[in-house]
Every structure is written in C-alpha cells, then in structure tokens.
C-alpha cells in the first residue's frame, strides 16, 4: 500500500472542491465545496503523519476538524440570514455592498 494513492485522492478531492467553488451559484454547494477542500487537506495531513511517523500531523488535523465545525456553524447562520432577507440561496444576489445595486 503506497501513499501515492492517498496523495492522488487528496489532490483530486481538492480540485473537485475548487471546481464546485468556481462553477456553482448555490450557496449550500459553495459551502460544501469549501468543506470538501478542507477535508482533502486533512487527508493529506493524516497521510503525511503516517508516512513520517510523526503525531504532530494528526494533532493539526484534529484542530482543523474543530475549525471546520466552527466555519460550518457561521456559514449556515449566514445562509439562513441571507435567505430570510432576500428569499434566495443564489450567490449573485449578494450585491448589497456594491455601489448603485439595483435590487438592494
């Protein structure tokens, strides 16, 4: 079992998250793409922690899991707030800060 397969999987997952982040407009899909990218980094950290036999990588991965939870809570609260004010989960509706916004 070589770790190259894990590296390949982590890079492909990161890229899928990046593709979802740049090509979709649904706020939930954007949020889940960010989570997927963070999880790919986590997988890379765990793999390196095993390859180098160093437990520090596992500790960092654990802290990143906690940061993922905090990010999820804030993002979902923001989605609820945005849906309550503009009745949409479209990221193109978020133009209130733009000068002369038409549907602010």
């Amino acid at each position, binding site marked *: 079992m070589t770790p190259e397969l894990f590296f390949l*999987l*982590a890079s492909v997952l990161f890229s899928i998250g990046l*593709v979802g982040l740049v090509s979709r407009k649904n706020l939930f899909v954007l949020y889940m793409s960010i*989570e997927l990218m963070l999880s790919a980094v986590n997988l890379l950290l765990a793999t390196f922690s095993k390859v180098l036999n160093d437990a520090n990588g*596992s*500790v960092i991965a654990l802290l990143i899991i906690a940061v993922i*939870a905090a990010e*999820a809570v804030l993002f979902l609260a923001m989605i609820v707030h945005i849906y309550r004010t503009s*009745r949409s989960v479209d990221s*193109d509706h978020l133009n209130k800060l733009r000068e002369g916004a038409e549907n602010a």
Partner: protein
Amino acid sequence: MLEISIFTILALFMLAGSIAMISNRQTLFSAFGFLVAMIGLAGMFALLDSRFLAIAQIMVSVGAVVVLSMLTILTINAKNENLPHEPHKYKWIFFSSILVLPVTLLIYKSTTALYQSFSTMEAVSSKVVGKLLFSEWVLPFEIVSILLLTAMVGAIVIARKETTTKETTKNDLMRSEENS
C-alpha cells in the same frame, strides 16, 4: 491486496459523492453526496491507522456538520424557483475542470516528491496524539475552543430575527404600563 481493494471502494464512493455534490441541482441531493464523501474520508482515516481521527471525523463532520447542514436545507425548504438559475452549469464545470487540472497535477507531484525524500510508514497511536495535544499543542487547543465559542455566539447573533426582540420589549413595556 485487501487494503488496495478497500481503498478503491472507498475512493470510488468519495469521488462519486463529491461529483454528485457539485453537479446536482437539488440541494438535498448535494448534501447526501457530501455525506457519502465524509463517511468515505472517515474510512480513509481508519485505513491510515489513525483511529482517533476516524472517530473524530465520524462524530464531528458526519454527526454534527452534515446533519446540521441537512437540517438547515430542510428548514429553508427552497422551492425550485428560489434556487439559482444555472443554465450553463455543466459547461462551467467542464471548463473549470480543465483549468484546475494543472493544479491537481502540481499538488500530486509535489506531495509525491516530498514523500520520496523521507518515509518510514508506521502507525500513529492515539496515546501519542493525546499527549502531544495536551503538552505541545495546548495553546492552539485552547484557541480553538475560544474560536468555537465565538462561532457559536456569532451564529446566534447572525441568525436571530431582529424584529422579534423589539416587539417583545415593546409588549413588555406596554404590559408593565397597564399593570401600573
């Protein structure tokens, strides 16, 4: 051989889940794809012999984050006309995949080169992780706990309805005036 087959099955589940996540129009189906990917990631952690991370992944990412996002999706219950209008979705996904492909190759090549320069391949025990977490990494651990508390308070403040509090205070004022 067994490890390779388990890895292949888990990797196929994760890839299928994440592709379903970015390509579905209905938000709940995307969340189900995300759930499959997260469970596959927990299996990957177990395959890498880091049991503590696997359990943490199951408890936090699957048990809390995905369930919370599914509950939010079901509560919001966006109708079809409220979902964003994306007529050229697959075209965008295709072109951005082509653009992102060199980044994928870069990450893969650089990590592989890093691994080839030093490697031992032994399991990381949970005991060592716990000792490190509470000796060397205790300051980041505490900072993360403060971050979680801040995120919780911030989420309550952001998602609260502003109008209800004003109405209740007004009602309370009127009621107190009536009583006096």
